């Protein structure tokens, strides 16, 4: 991950600040930075979203394509994730530098979405064993400003909320061969329910306390972080530890409790923003990349 170099004194200042619940930008340990979420920014995708969390900038595009269901799940569609760490974010990502981080993030997303019930995959099925919808979720990292996983999960949720999959009808010929007909009306589509899609909350351990939404400077002072995925009802679906330091079981338990609390409020505010955007409909002024 992109890292900044800090002097010893700066690190000491940050660590002492976290102990007193006053971070460098005035936030408490459980406060997120101001986030901007905008959906439907890329026109040739089925759904897209852009999230700006401080200096972190993520763009997610979802494309729905027809494919064959997996052998072990013949009556369900599936999701494919691909994460591209662009060289725009930091010079370290030039060439193949960003591949390692990209595959790490993609495998985390696969893990989270593999739990039962996150997305209704049965609704993505058209013909069991023959045709289904495959959602290709592409994540593009435009700027790296700390706390990548949280921002990416928010963007993925927003993009899935925005995804519009065209309705199809299956026609049977006299010979028995099936034909798929796409509806002509562009507004005739099915939407995914994202109520159970979890969001990732990263808790970084700094000194004796943990913080939510760490900036790059705070990440440089933290030796270990806990990544948990929380649903809107506060249920924990997945957990992962990153970093070379160690965490003792009591702090893991505390971090889990904080994560559940913070995750729940994150879901409510995200849903509010998405519903507001939805209610504006076609009259909404899109800011996109010009803002």
């Amino acid at each position: 991950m992109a890292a900044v170099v800090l002097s010893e004194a700066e690190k000491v200042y940050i660590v002492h600040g976290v102990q007193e619940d006053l971070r460098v930008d005035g936030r408490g340990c459980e406060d997120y930075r101001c986030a901007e979420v905008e959906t439907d920014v890329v026109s040739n995708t089925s759904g897209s979203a852009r999230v700006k969390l401080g200096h972190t900038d993520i763009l997610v595009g979802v494309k729905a394509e027809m494919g064959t269901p997996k052998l072990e799940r013949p009556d369900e569609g599936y999701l494919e994730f691909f994460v591209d760490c662009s060289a725009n974010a930091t010079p370290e990502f030039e060439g193949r530098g960003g591949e390692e981080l990209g595959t790490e993030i993609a495998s985390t997303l696969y893990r989270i979405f593999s739990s039962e019930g996150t997305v209704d995959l049965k609704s993505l099925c058209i013909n069991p064993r023959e045709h289904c919808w495959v959602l290709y979720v592409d994540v593009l990292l435009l700027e790296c400003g700390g706390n990548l996983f949280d921002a990416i999960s928010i963007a993925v949720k927003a993009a899935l909320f925005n995804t519009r999959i065209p309705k199809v009808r299956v026609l049977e010929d006299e010979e028995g061969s099936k034909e798929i007909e796409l509806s002509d009306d562009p507004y005739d589509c099915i939407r995914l329910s994202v109520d159970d899609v979890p969001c990732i909350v990263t808790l970084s351990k700094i000194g004796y306390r943990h913080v939510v939404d760490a900036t790059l400077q705070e990440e440089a002072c933290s030796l270990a972080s806990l990544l948990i995925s929380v649903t809107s009802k506060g249920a924990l679906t997945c957990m992962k530890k990153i970093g070379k330091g160690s965490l003792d079981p009591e702090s893991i338990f505390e971090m889990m409790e904080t994560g559940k609390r913070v995750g729940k409020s994150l879901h409510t505010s995200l849903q509010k923003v998405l519903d507001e955007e939805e209610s504006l409909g076609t009259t909404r002024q899109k800011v996109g990349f010009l803002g």
Partner: protein
Amino acid sequence: ALRRGHGTYVCDEKLVASVAGVVERVNKLVCVKPLKSRYNGEVGDIVVGRITEVQQKRWKVETNSRLDSVLLLSSMNLPGGELRRRSAEDELAMRDYLQEGDLISAEVQSVFSDGALSLHTRSLKYGKLGQGVLVQVSPSLVKRQKTHFHDLPCGASVILGNNGFIWIYPTPEQKDEEGGGFTTNLEPVPLSDREVISRLRNCVVALVTQNLMLFDTSILYCYEASLPHQIKDILKPEVMEEIVLETRQKLLDLEG
């Protein structure tokens, strides 16, 4: 006939700006100073830099310029302020004083032919920086003044580096030690000082987002305008606009 300076070009017999910025005119010479660019050093500027490399008899310092700046061992003050020729032991002990990642405040001594800056810390007010917060802004937003070291009345001190590195730190109790702080004070900073520093940091970020010049008065007015709000709310777009508008108004009243 206008003479074209930096940042302009001629197109269809008209003078057009090639960068987005501020126009400066000196008689017939028209130049455009860009809003965002790398720092171009001048002799006598105060800069805040970060050590990137420790080399044979010098340190390489990052100052947001096109090339890394150079801090020669001979341009650094020795502990106790002694004046002597730097020996081989001094060369070996370089890393004990400044390591990779350390922040320093220095003055530009000269500019090499390739454009790299040569810095010096030959004064008690320069040297290694201790605890505090660094904010990186565009160099064009830092106003040129007589002094760049300010002890603000709100309870913290600030160094406005010409290269766009703003260093905000707790005001040291007494003007202690011999020479640029050879031993860094790692004592915890009291909460009241922290609040002032965090508020100043957010005010600087707010001023920069709204493209206002940074100097001691503008930062102070912005600080006063931000007092009714909570520190973390200053970075919200609506609050930022309101505070900076009030600052702009106060500055206009000051001039008028």
